[in-house]
């Protein structure tokens, strides 16, 4: 079966965006962001969602567009879906900093 496609926006990125629906075990070939990479999806990933290009330890920075989009809330295996269940936003976190004085 032909490899499915995912797009890397910047060479520094550790996630790619899927442009096809992925099933567990699907082979993925990346485009963009330097040399093409091959990996396999470890779980189902819908169109337009992100796949981890490498193992991302808990607390490590998640990078897309060459910039920080958040940090790993738990360890993320290579080939896994990266979304709100394992990516924590780092900006405008009123819940972490508490209410500021108005």
């Amino acid at each position, binding site marked *: 079966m032909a490899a499915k496609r995912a797009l890397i926006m910047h060479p520094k990125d550790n996630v790619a965006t899927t442009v096809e629906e992925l099933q567990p075990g699907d082979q993925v070939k990346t485009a963009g962001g330097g040399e093409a990479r091959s990996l396999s999806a470890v779980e189902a990933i819908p169109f337009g*969602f992100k796949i981890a290009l490498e193992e991302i330890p808990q607390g490590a920075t998640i990078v897309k567009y060459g910039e920080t989009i958040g940090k790993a809330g738990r360890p993320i295996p290579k080939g896994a879906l990266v979304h709100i269940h394992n990516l924590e936003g780092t900006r*405008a976190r009123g819940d972490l900093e508490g209410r500021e004085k108005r």
Partner: protein
Amino acid sequence: MSFLGYPRPDGSVGTRNYVLVIPQGLISKSICDFVTGTRTIHTVDHGSGRTANDRERIARVLIGLGRNPNVASVILHAASPGVGYPELRVERLADEITAGGKRVEVLDPVKDGGVYGSITKGMQLARRMVYEASKLRRVDVGDEHLCLGVKCGYSDTTSGIAGNPAIGYLFDKVVKAGGTAFLGETTEIIGAEHFLAKRAANPQVAKAILDAVAHREALAKSTGLDIRTINPIPANIKGGLSSLEEKSLGAVHKAGTSTVQGVLQYGERPKGKGLYFVDCWMGSYSIFAGYAAAGSNLVMFQLGGGGLAGRDLMEGSPSIVAPFLWCTANPRTYEMAKDNIDYYSGTVITDGEDPQEAGERLYRTVIDIASGTLSKSETLTHTDAIDLCLEEPRF
């Protein structure tokens, strides 16, 4: 390159040719219901109990819409004859719109024999003014007369990959030609503000960008909430966006690569041409009214839509006087809502279309619509009510 537009006395050029009847309410609606070629604003933000700053924001929108290049002439009515807030008095609005070189007629129920009298007089005036406006002919003008405004919404990962980059290409091309372009939505540059700040025309502009973001982020934190419970909105998350930073980094692609000339308040007209950032929230309806008030003669909604289902019919124009385009780069959104979509760039993702060629296609679409081809949303008479972007508590 060039488009066909209506030249105005102040040197601007319209892509449409309306008679505007403002502010909102029974008088304006009655006139517009009866007279073709007219436009009014549908909003409940009339200023009562609002602070001076917010009343000034409302006044800026009304004056700015009156001065918009797509408006041939204006009918104003005195909402509260003689007793209104100073910012919103009809004499003030009339003076500032007239300063732009346009014919302005004023209705006053006290002098016209009540609201019925003003409606009758207004209908008669509006018919004559629309007839006069119809005698104007479009002429060939340069792209420096384009003034574009964009918002991205229901964003998903296609927005940052292929949707916003096409807008960015268009913005670069129009700015290079001497035109003007607006982007806004301060919350949605949180995490990407440094991209815009490093392209600021001078240190003051860079500081204004960073200050706008710092102010908005502090407000967000003061809620005690994770911003992710508010923005990205559920449709963004369902479309694959995982954090505000990710959304912002995709969103700033619509700015292209031009220098940011300044930061504008909601509805504020720029002093020069080029790319401007408008400090406002994301409201899908309020933002376009703000762009139109700042002088936009064409506005665009870059739609992700990955988290949308069943939306085969979209709302009509929320910009009041500026033609409104729906753009998308999501293949499913395009299939679902083809009747509404003016421009599609998902081909960059699915067929490997060169992003530059996709940008050129958008440019040609914009020129066609600026020259008189209707945008899909303009084929609807329905327009949604607009909540103006007001910032302060009401009392």
